[in-house]
């Protein structure tokens, strides 16, 4: 499907909030992976 040049400013607030949420969740996942690896190999 071809990308269309929709207005990227339109939902900037919800987009920014979504990014904040996803990044925070992913960082938490990385921390969890680190702890699980430590538990397995420690």
């Amino acid at each position: 499907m071809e990308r269309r040049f929709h207005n990227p400013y339109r939902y900037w607030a919800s987009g920014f909030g979504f990014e904040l949420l996803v990044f925070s969740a992913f960082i938490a996942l990385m921390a969890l992976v680190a702890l699980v690896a430590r538990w397995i190999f420690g």
Partner: protein
Amino acid sequence: MWIRLQNSEISSIAHYLGRLMFGVGLVQLVPLLTAVLSREWDPAFDYLFGVGLTMLVSVLLMSLSTEASAISRREALMISGLAWLTATVLAAVPLVLSGHYGSFLDSIFETASGFTTSGLTLTQDMDHLANAHNMWRHLTHLIGGQGIIVAAVSLAIGIKGGAFSLYLAEGRDEQILPNVVHTARFIWFVTGIWVAFGTLALTVNGLWHGMSFDRSFLHSFWLTIAAYDTGGFGPQSSNTLFYHNAMLEFITVVLMMAGTLNFNLHADLWRGDKGEIFKNLEARTLSANLLILTAFAAAGMAATSLMGSASEVVRKGAYHVISANSGTGHQSIYAVQWEDMGPAAFYAVMLAMAFGGMVSSTAGGIKALRIGVMIKSVVLEVRRALSPPSAVVRTKFHHLTDRVLTPELMAAAFMIFALYIFTYITGGLIGAAYGYPLGDALFESISAAANVGLSTGITSPDMPTGLKWVYTIQMWIGRLEFLTLFALVAAVVHSLVPGRRNA
């Protein structure tokens, strides 16, 4: 076919170079203002001189051609390459006047590290560096991260008919909006929102922990642009270790992730297409890289006596993996402590640096998209080998749109991968030739070429002059991703060769 530059092309290149340097001179007014507000009078004179010199060079260059004509792709490559080099030299002048650098080469190294968003530093007595000089160091991350050309295009500095060529020549390929000027402005809008958030969050955190308002605000602004532009400079010699603050580390890691995200992805998410981040090949590859390398780092650290605690594997292990992979280079350990992390963590961080973040972001390295394409290529070849000879085997992937994996895409990915590996190894061997341990030398070489900035301690004012040149060149090569710099060198060399004007 090599074509020598014509006189008209040279004056056109000089004219646009002058316009871009005019912009660099304008930005130097910010550290000048910082110096005045901080009552730092010696630094104020340093920046007064810097602004004057930059503007003088700008005017002289612009005067070589009286009008701005449309520029070709070739001229755009030359302008982009020369703009980065010229800005690096001119920006170094106020820093060398500060007295915090051993030589003009050291200050050139610093501005090259700033503009390329590497973060390796040769600043001496950084803990007593004036606010104005710290402001300028960190602003080089902001300008370099967004791109000197992007900055100029977004301000529409009278670039006629070649804005898109210049934009591409800087190694950018985002086409978020139909007009390149609007695309550049959108990139600045995203940056503005994230920088405002980061500065506010870190300032509040700093105030909460007892810092004065002005110090908290300045440190927060600097750390924010260093993290978001994945640069890695810090206002203190011990970088983010200085603060011993988990919330600061968390906020800066969020900023690093924002900085390593492809700007096209930012655009898609801000347009409302939230599903894109989950089906995008590059996002998936980057996520897998981060999680796998974090696991290796943590597993290695768990076996050590000094870095095996739960807090350490998260705040030192996972933190440095993401700092490395995003190309930021914020470091929360002393250089000598890399040994304490154990070899698995050391090499996991090294791989994270080498792999790099997303294309169309401020991150460096090979880039997640190319790694994803290479993995897909291997799978495709295995499928072909297992299929009947008459079968037509194709594979698709999703990166902003659905795409077919073509031989051209595969070749381009492998070519850049090979160039990066060659650059990493060459720098590592040169470091080893100077007497440094091979592992440390390779780490430092990758850090420079992938524009990361993590250091084993090799990068210091005392390091050999030859190595300063090597890392400076590697930082430029990595930031401009080979093509622009090679084109510049080829054009200059060919123009100097006597004989036929055109091949």
